[in-house]
């Protein structure tokens, strides 16, 4: 599988016990992740390779690779579409001690990215308008 890393510009996330909130300033969107989605995002933030995430999903949720891999792939595509992650050449790290407890989770659910677009207008920076020629490009130093 291809490997991915979190986009470095304008993305921030906060982890709570039952939810992860992500902010994407360049797109003006924000997101909520729960359960499996939190699990995957936390590992992406640690630059864990996709193959290892499949391994960890299988182990943590007691599911087969045949279930874990397509679910991860669909979810990664959603994250790419939202420009939250991007493909990377590096192979990623192979272990992430301490991110999630070393025990089996209760049940596997398909990871869901909840997308909130209602603040786009507010969150996206407005480019400044072209200078109005009638206003003489105020307030700039005159070109010499």
């Amino acid at each position, binding site marked *: 599988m291809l490997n991915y890393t979190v986009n470095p510009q304008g993305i*921030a996330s906060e982890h*709570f016990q039952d939810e*992860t909130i992500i*902010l994407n300033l360049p797109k003006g969107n924000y997101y909520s992740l729960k359960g499996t989605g939190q699990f995957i995002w936390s590992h992406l933030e640690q630059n864990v390779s996709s193959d290892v995430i499949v391994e960890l999903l299988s182990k943590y949720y007691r599911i087969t690779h045949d279930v874990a891999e397509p679910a991860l792939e669909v979810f990664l595509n959603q994250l790419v579409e939202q420009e939250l992650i991007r493909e990377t050449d590096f192979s990623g790290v192979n272990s992430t001690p301490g991110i999630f407890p070393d025990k089996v989770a209760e049940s596997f659910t398909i990871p869901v990215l909840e997308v909130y677009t209602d*603040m786009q207008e507010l969150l996206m920076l407005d480019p400044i*308008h072209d200078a109005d020629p009638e206003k003489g490009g105020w*307030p700039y*130093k005159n070109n010499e």
Partner: protein
Amino acid sequence: MTVLIKNNVDSFLEEAANRVEETLVLQTFSSCFEWANHQIRVVLVGVSDTDFFTDAIVHRLAADISTSPELTIYVVDDSVAEKVLPEPFWKENDLDIYGHLQGITEDDFAEYSSFNQVFTILSRKMGLCVVWVRNVASLPEWERSFPFRNVLYQWFKNSKYLFVHAGAVGNPHGGVLLTGKGGMGKSTATLSCLDSALKYAGDDFVMIDTETLTVHCLYNVAKLEASNLHRFPELAPHVANMQSLPQEKGQVFLHFCKPESLIAQFSLKAIFLPRFTGQETTVLRPATRGEALLALAPSTIGLLKADAQMMSRIAGLIQKLPCYWIETGTLLDTIPATISTWLNIDSNG
């Protein structure tokens, strides 16, 4: 692009300060305001409508004026005081597409806002700021309700103070933030407390000391939509901009009409997330910290044009406080009653 150096900002601000201080004839206002014992001097130059910049902060006029305020803000109306400021050292292509001046240090802030034609330049090290306004008369009316919001945010940005988009009500023993997305009932919940035992510290932006968890009132304005005016008929005679309704929100400057309803600061006890249910009475239900962050962070970051890292500061605040949904009832007096009851239980518990 010209490579700018720090000295350009310093020398521009120094010369600007010298020129303004010498041009007493154009100064229409000069006084100090105080938030959390931080004195900030405001000097208006060529501004005839001085109330535009002072109505919302008049309650924070300093009683004892310091001889050395930590920040001086010079507001210069270029349409009147055209020759007062020195020539800009920046050219048009020194700004990025968002209006930020490139090549300055982290200590400085300089930005051109094209929609209202205001250039703001601030040096944190020098404690000087120039707000250069093309024409004060052309500023949008709603800016009257939060003067210097961006300057104050930039000034306190790297300190223990956090600016958040929330209403705040409480009493000398403690209070709560009321925050949520538009249409959830934040304004109604905040305004409903005006005639109660709870005091008002803001309905838009407040400043929070994140170390002591103290809310500081920034602005004394209460804002209400034209569609909400019938719920608060006693406020109608005090709406200062009735001519701007319904396109803009009505502005009521409480310092002038209900000064007893204001509180300068209180200890922050909880975050309440209003949502209207249509039930008669008001009910509290636990909210998750994720829900509180979703309610508080996006609009705060968007309105302040802050960077993404601000979310972690807001999350840090939320981690320290209990969070509740306040399901507001149609009987408005049940809103302050519910908040007061919770505060009493909290202070006794």
